[in-house]
């Protein structure tokens, strides 16, 4: 039996797959927040786009089948497109409320969380527990046979590959291109960017939309791939975890991705431990993810990291400081008034 057939590697592969929706969501929200907008509605909007994506895919699939066209690809693409659109619209609403109407982003985001959750439950009421289209499993031929790494990275479906690519693309865009630099400037110091001639608010709208679209895709990645279908409060709570991971990630794509995978590992660990120790009450394993959230936020929020860096040798302090940076973009959450 090759190493790729072991339970361990299977679990590793499953962790990577299960992390895909979070990878999309945290990368998207990192982009949005880097441009200066907090989209606190993540829990609601992910649920809303999960529902929307599934429902659209289901309905489109039904219509196409009636017309004699089978296959899951088109319905799923339709569902994903709609989910991305919904996510972008929600994020744009928050940006608009902040930029044009000068309202508090946190307040709008929180209200939207609750509203979108209700709407998701309401509009999804006819579609609960129905079997629906799903993304097709598509292992990459030779690469998926590499020991350990193969199943982890190359034995998934297109959506999951896409999520990996999104992380890399986001990093490259943010740190290696001129527009990315502008975006970071807008989030960090809008006044300075404005003086340099950048249309601050238009940039904010653009990246908010992109980030929101990715968040929407993340939501649909659950209902169309990882946790197929729809039910009441289908993915409740995952949006908050995504927001915490963005903070943990220090608003950097790779670190955020690391956080998403860390979360996946915690979940898998909880499941494995639970089956190995059935005598331990279930509560302990359920609480692991929330304790992890608190632990991770404590780590970046308190002075702990700062003090740890000071313990390191002098030459290592600067690079470590950059690597473990935890400060949010200075212009986050503010409304920039273009005179």
């Amino acid at each position: 039996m090759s190493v790729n057939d072991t339970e361990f590697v299977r679990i590793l592969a499953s962790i990577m797959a299960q992390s895909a929706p979070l990878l999309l969501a945290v990368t998207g929200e990192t982009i949005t927040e880097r441009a200066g907008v907090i989209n606190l509605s993540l829990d609601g909007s992910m649920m809303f786009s999960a529902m929307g994506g599934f429902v659209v895919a289901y309905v489109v699939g039904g219509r196409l089948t009636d017309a004699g066209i089978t296959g899951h690809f088109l319905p799923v693409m339709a569902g994903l497109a709609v989910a991305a659109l919904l996510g972008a619209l929600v994020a744009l609403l928050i940006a608009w409320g902040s930029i044009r109407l000068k309202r508090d982003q946190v307040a709008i985001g929180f209200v939207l969380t609750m509203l979108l959750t209700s709407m998701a439950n309401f509009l999804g009421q006819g579609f609960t527990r129905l079997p629906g289209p799903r993304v097709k499993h598509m292992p990459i031929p030779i690469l998926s046979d590499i020991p350990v790494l193969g199943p982890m990275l190359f034995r998934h479906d297109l959506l999951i590959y896409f999520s990996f690519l999104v992380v890399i693309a986001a990093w490259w865009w943010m740190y290696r291109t001129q527009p990315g630099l502008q975006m970071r400037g807008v989030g960090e110091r809008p006044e300075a960017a404005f003086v340099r001639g950048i249309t601050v608010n238009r940039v904010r709208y653009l990246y908010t939309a992109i980030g929101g679209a990715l968040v929407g895709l993340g939501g649909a990645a659950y209902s169309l791939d990882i946790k197929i279908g729809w039910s009441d409060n289908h993915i409740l709570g995952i949006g908050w975890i995504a927001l915490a991971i963005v903070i943990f990630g220090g608003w950097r794509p790779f670190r955020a991705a690391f956080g998403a995978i860390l979360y996946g590992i915690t979940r898998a660990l909880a499941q494995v431990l639970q089956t190995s120790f059935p005598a331990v009450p279930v509560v302990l394993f359920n609480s692991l993810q929330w304790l992890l959230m608190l632990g991770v936020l404590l780590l970046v929020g308190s002075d702990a990291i700062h003090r740890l860096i000071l313990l390191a040798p002098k030459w290592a302090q600067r690079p470590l400081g950059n690597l473990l940076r935890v400060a949010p973009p200075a212009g986050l959450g503010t409304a920039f008034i273009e005179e």
Partner: protein
Amino acid sequence: MRERVLRTVWPAVPIILAVATTALLVMVYQADPVQTFSALWEGAFGSPQSTFLTLAFWVPLLLASIGLLMTFTAGLWNIGVEGQMIMGAIAASWVALKWTEAMPNAPHWIFLPCSIILSMVAGALWAALAAVLKTRGGVHEIFGGVALNNLAIITTNYFISGPWQPPEGGTFRGTEPFPEYSLFPLYGNTRFAPLSLVLAIIALIAVALALRGTIWGLRLKALGKNMRASFMLGISSEREAITSMMLCGALAGLAGAVRVLSWFDSLRQSISGGIGFLAILIVLLASLRPLLVVVISLIFSGLLTGGSVVELRTQLHSSLSGIIQGTLVLFMLLFGDYRQLFRKRKTPAEEVAEEQPVPVEAVES
């Protein structure tokens, strides 16, 4: 003159928008909006029975909202109020279940006050935890609140399915019913407990007076508006944050006790019923005004109790209530402030005029 009229009438606009949006949604589902809204009214206040149901649901909602008045004044987003309610409910359940068991010869009237006190302590401590996580650990109170909410729910499930499970086995539904003398005295055969309303009104008066008329309330208000300037004026943000959170937690814990000892008669899985989150919406909508909080919480309570009747009549999902509430708050948040929307900017000339100092002789006495 016309502007003044527009300004007073303007708040009706978000309400109309919210109602219209809901009606639209209802029609999409081929239900009759008129029938839906009348079912809503009937379920809320249509009969004495439903009115008392609305009142019974209203009291814990009001308590939680009063508590949130304090934390919002201080500029804090106490999302953890839901978890504070739950911990209060757990503490009250502990007294009602285990103390009554352990002290069968104690006078019956003693258990309710103990439940009340303990639930307030539990809620306050759970809130203190979120506050300390923020002040010492740099964990934003929103995340602390969300994590602690979930941990509170998990704790509830632990007790229900474990140490406190009913004799017939843990089924995740609830503990066995508490002895009647440990509950709030109920009015007739409704779920409404007049004593709980009295407590809520006392809390309302106390908090409203404290916020308006004490130095503590003013400090909170300053803190909420400008943390740095407040510090420079001598206010300790850590102390006030912790205190206001604990007081809010105490009221939320009391709300939890009211839930578990009057609305229910045992500890259930969904003991808090989303009341905490709803209270946040209410206080946002009321712009922190105590009287408005009373009115809006009553309306929202009606929307929820009415919503279950709507579900019966029209087969529409009960989350419709949540949609009405959410759209109302959203539209009010976005479009509700007339002055903000249509404020005219000061002209440069007006700005300059303000800078001129008044000559000494012209100052009026």
